[in-house]
């Protein structure tokens, strides 16, 4: 079994305290074939729901963005979080500054961009939105909830 390229080496941002998985991620097909992998990589065309029966043994899901304009990975991320996945969710590939706040909202909590991002620009991007209009995979209360009494 050949591990894919992704390793913890190029993780630039991580919003978790647990130890990162120390081995590379395998493809969805390889993951479904073998019982011991704890890290899996989703490509844009993969169905994230195939992982749902096995979430208890997954510690890292990498979602690959070969091109930042292909937004399928956003849905993959939310589907995993909606199903209760608590492990690391890492965006890899063509990950850019101006998508970071949306990635966070879809449930990503680590980032391994192909090209390292400007640290200052990235920190500003993560903090772009003081409020949000809709519920997503993060636990932020949407504006409609704030308007009707829920705390932020």
């Amino acid at each position, binding site marked *: 079994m050949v591990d894919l390229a992704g390793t913890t080496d190029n993780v630039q941002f991580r919003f978790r305290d647990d130890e990162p998985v120390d081995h590379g991620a395998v493809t969805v097909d390889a993951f479904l074939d073998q019982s011991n992998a704890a890290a899996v990589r989703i490509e844009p065309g993969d169905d994230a729901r195939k992982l749902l029966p096995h979430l208890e043994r997954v510690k890292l899901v990498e979602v690959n963005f070969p091109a930042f304009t292909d*937004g*399928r990975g956003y849905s993959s991320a939310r589907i995993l979080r909606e199903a209760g996945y608590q492990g690391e969710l890492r965006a890899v590939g063509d990950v850019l500054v101006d998508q970071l706040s*949306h990635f966070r909202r*879809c449930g990503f909590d680590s980032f391994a961009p192909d090209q390292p991002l400007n640290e200052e620009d990235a920190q500003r991007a993560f903090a772009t939105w003081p409020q949000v209009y*809709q519920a997503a995979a993060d636990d932020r209360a949407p504006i409609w909830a704030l308007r009707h009494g829920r705390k932020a």
Partner: protein
Amino acid sequence: MYRYDQYDQTMVDTRVAEFRDQTRRRIEGHLTEDQFKPLRLQNGLYLQLHAYMLRVAVPYGTLNSAQMHMLATIADKYDRGYGHFTTRQNIQYNWIKLEDAPDILADLATVEMHAIQTSGNCIRNISSDHYAGAAADEVTDPRPYAELLRQWSSFHPEFLALPRKFKIAVIASETDRAAMKLHDIGIRIVKNESGELGAAFYVGGGMGRTPMIAPLVREFVPLDQLITYSEACLRVYNRYGRRDNKYKARIKILVHELGLDEYRRQVEDEFAQLQGQDIEPPLAELERIGEYFRDPPFTVGLPEEIDRSDPDFALWVDRNTHAHKQPGYVAVTISLKPVGGIPGDATAAQIHLMADLAREYSFDECRVTHAQNIVLAHVEKQRLHELWSKLDEAGLGTANLDLIGDIIACPGLDYCSLANARSIPVAQKISQRFAENGKDGVLGELKLKISGCINACGHHHAGHIGILGVDKKGTENYQLLLGGCEGDDTSLGKITGPGFDEDGIVNAVETATDVYLRERADGERFLDTYRRIGMEPFKEALYG
């Protein structure tokens, strides 16, 4: 109409700051043009043939006078003193400098406006019925639902990199005045047998190179599921819409390739998955928004009679006003289609004037229509003559609503980097021809729509007469289509045969209208006659 609270204002202000920073990073070279392009597009900024074009959002087409004044101010301050109202009920400016764009957005934000998601592969500005709140045939005002969807779709983190653009229209009456079934999602607010309101979802319509009429995907979505169901429709599209070919990337292709039943099944599955995720705003939020759309304080007992002694005025009343639910009032359409003019264009002075008139005659509110005109929705009949006189003096009194001169046209090759042919000169020539030969009035309702390329921004598929500009071995050529219709009985036009050059297409349109005048039965519109007699008599006259 809707007003921002502190949250809405913060969102728009935040967006201005974000875009200012993005523009700075682009100008300083930290962002490549490829990286910047989707960002500027989602702020309405296109790079066209000669300059940047900025498309400003007019949610469901509704504006107050302060907003309208700001649109005029922007035309003067940053552009060449005019703006172009579009088929998506927005306005665009054609001569914008990139470095000015953040300042324009900041100016817009001072009057609760923006250019968010007016372009790009995301959920676009949501359109609606331009007679909303005035029409006698609506079950409710559709705009609160459009506003709820506007907020949900703004910066929706999952749906900002869709396969392609995504357009939603919301109506709430039997008569469809928003071309609802030619949208990616068309929503009709309906009442069920128990008198409850809900939403009928039509999904997968559109124009472009593969025009399709949206099929009904669900008859009744309860109002407290509106967002969840929309999200399910979008998620299936985001996951499975084609990304290998941009010409096959709209949701209409997905629905067509999957088949209606399979698409519906997938949406219902996703809808079930999304239940319990707590993504639906409470009905109290819809009620909060609805408060902003209550009827204005109409005066009761106003006279119904209109003094028709001035024949020019009487003609304008007949052609450019629409029945109102409130006795003593009408809805007025200000035509932006003067004879020989550029459809949808208005000067800054005209926009300022329309703002003042909206304030004085229509409870401080006006609307942009998808036919590129302006509506004053609530005008007292007894003040119509006064209003008309002011409009007429400013070149805004053209009495041609829904006549052949009321042409929809895209900007075409005069501005647009996608176009194959010019639209504006063809529109101008047709408008002049039929004004000069006096047939414009005789022909009655005849919707003519011109697109300068196959992307169909000028809605040529939906014109009773449609014109499509194509490139034929390096010269502009125009195809003629007949029989399209955007309303309740939506139909797509059919090409008559070989195309024409610029003068030839003007003659061909006249030939087609002559066939109608010869063949029409009592009370038939052009479209009715075409539907009855079919294409052959027209073909024979055109090519025979």
